[in-house]
């Protein structure tokens, strides 16, 4: 019964392993990302950022080049672990990628067991950096999203917020942070959880309109949820002063696809759109992205780029020092002090980036204008202002 299997796997394995002779100056980096399954969209966007990072690194860095080996984790934890192990067997010295805290968790533990660095931006759960891993790094956290949203609200002087959030892990975590963070500041918070399969948001918005009567609505969900919520709100026109959300909202894609829906909506953002690039690096990044994928970078691509770039630089430094096999990559990652496209990045002992704060962008006339914090703002916030 099980006799057939090892033959098949041994054969396939020898085919795979036999085919990769290594080239001296080329460093192999493993990318473990969801390219199919329910995280395919976000995984695909992060993957683009990783590819751009490799392209840019290889162009300017004469001494070392990186080769990205990509394995689809199919949005499944077990397959993510398998992907990390396969990539390691194929010679990857470190890993970039990962989306969803429940997938990053086991995958990064597998990387830890192999003693190899795993860097990500796709999992914001605070538990991830409480596990005491030595080789785990991430450049963002749910704190940063919640902080940015609360920062903008408090600058606006908002006294009551209705939080509409999806019952998914990351969305629920950010929603709870808002609740915990806004309450003590004297802001009245009402919570409205919704099932991820919800597509008619009118009953929820109606409750908010008639019962909560808040000054602001905060949406914590994903693109399809935002479109549904905003359409319902546009029909019901609750008497609020602003409506804002987190990831995937203040993006060029949303501005291009749903211009009439997005006007005056704010969301966490790293770049304005069209991007007003202030640094040469950011400009080169956007140009390369445009050339490779024929579109403007979105925030997932930007995060994928930054995490990979920092990893490549650390690996290159470790290679020079000859410490790649002795935990040198993790040590070099901890030395990172970099001003990146998403702001300052450094890593603490747990691998978190304590500098991470998101900015807030607002859709204005088909553009995304950075409106918070003041020192990185590219325009004035419209307040009170809603899409209807």
């Amino acid at each position, binding site marked *: 019964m099980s006799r057939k299997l090892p033959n098949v796997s041994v054969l396939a394995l020898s085919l795979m392993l036999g085919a990769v002779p290594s080239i001296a100056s080329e460093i192999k980096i493993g990318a473990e990302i969801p390219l199919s399954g329910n995280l395919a969209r976000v995984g695909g966007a992060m993957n683009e950022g990783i590819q751009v990072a490799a392209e840019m690194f290889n162009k300017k860095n004469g001494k070392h080049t990186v080769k990205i080996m990509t394995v689809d984790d199919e949005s499944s934890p077990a397959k993510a672990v398998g992907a990390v192990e396969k990539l390691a067997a194929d010679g990857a010295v470190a890993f970039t990628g990962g989306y969803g805290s429940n997938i990053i968790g086991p995958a990064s533990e597998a990387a830890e067991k192999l003693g190899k660095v795993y860097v990500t931006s796709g999992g914001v759960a605070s538990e991830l950096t409480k596990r005491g891993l030595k080789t785990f790094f991430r450049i963002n956290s749910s704190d940063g999203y919640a902080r940015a949203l609360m920062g903008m609200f408090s600058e606006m002087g908002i006294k009551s917020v209705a939080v509409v959030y999806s019952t998914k892990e990351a969305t629920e975590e950010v929603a709870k942070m808002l609740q915990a963070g806004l309450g003590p500041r004297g802001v009245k918070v009402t919570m409205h959880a919704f099932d991820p399969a919800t597509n008619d948001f*009118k009953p929820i918005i109606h409750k908010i309109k008639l019962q909560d009567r808040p000054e602001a609505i905060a949406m914590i969900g994903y693109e399809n949820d935002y479109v549904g919520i905003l359409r319902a709100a546009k029909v019901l026109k609750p008497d609020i002063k602003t409506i804002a959300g987190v990831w995937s909202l203040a993006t060029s894609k949303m501005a291009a696809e749903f211009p009439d829906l997005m006007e005056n909506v704010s969301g966490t953002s790293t770049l304005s759109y069209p991007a007003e690039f202030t640094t040469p690096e950011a400009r080169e990044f956007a140009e390369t992205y445009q050339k490779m994928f024929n579109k403007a970078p979105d925030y997932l691509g930007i995060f994928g780029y930054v995490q990979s770039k920092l990893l490549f630089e650390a690996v290159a430094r470790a290679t020079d020092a000859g410490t790649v096999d002795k935990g040198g990559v993790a040590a070099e990652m901890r030395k990172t002090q970099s001003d990146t496209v998403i702001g300052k990045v450094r890593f603490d002992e747990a691998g978190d980036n304590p500098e991470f704060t998101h900015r807030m962008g607002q859709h204005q006339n088909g553009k995304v204008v950075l409106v918070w914090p003041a020192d990185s703002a590219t325009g004035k916030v419209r307040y009170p202002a809603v899409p209807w």
Partner: protein
Amino acid sequence: MLELILQSLFSGVLSGAYYALIALGLALVFGTMRVINLAHGELVLLGAYISYTAEEKLGLDPLASLPLALAVVVATAMAVYYLVSLIKKDRELNSLILTFGIGVILTNAVLMIWSADIHSATTAWYHDAVIPFDILFAMQAELVFAGIGIVLVGAVWWWLEKSWYGRALRAVASNRDAAKLMGVNPQLTEVLSFAVSGLLATVAGIAIYTAKVIQPAMGHHLTVKAFIITVLAGMGSVPGVLLGAVLLGVVESLTVTMASSALQELAGMVLFLVVLLLMPSGLFGRAKRRG
């Protein structure tokens, strides 16, 4: 509170009419062939994506994309029928597994062709508000497609009850051999029911693309919703599909209003199980033995 409940009922009825559009094709094939087409949701999704492509590339209004979407979806439905017709024994269960496999193929094909991005119609008119009696709120698209849903349910009902083809279809469903003796070609009638089911899936797909947001992974969810409604309706009851769908829509939206949206799917599933276990012939079906 009264205002909330009224709006909730209104939203629920509109959702119901839209659910009916999704469920009718599944119920039709189930009623006539005893085949649960688990790829039905994927057919709906396919229609939605064709409509998207037509709007994106050709600038067509979603409704104007109907002929194109119809051609693709009905052709696919025919292919599904052909494969199902190859099953020789134990058709009820084997077709379940076969159409499930076809659903997996279609979902992944959609993912490969259109990527995992979300899409929705951009024509603003569809999303403008309609406010009957000054206290009820809806999007134009919801009213349009609720109307289309009710008309199609009526048309299918008329077709099955009054037309010769419809009666032939029901004859085949209740007794294939006897129908053959009466000069009805069972194969032809089955092809017909699949074709009509494809048509209904196309319209449902356009409705979803216009009023909601589409993504490749949603096909399975649509199939499950459609099956729930088919069970609520009871075997072979076309008006039951509309009533069952409205009931589901209302139960879901009342759950949101009275409790929380996090519980709305739970409410739908519990309603489904209660009807399934306690009312073997559904809410509106003719008495049929199921257990």
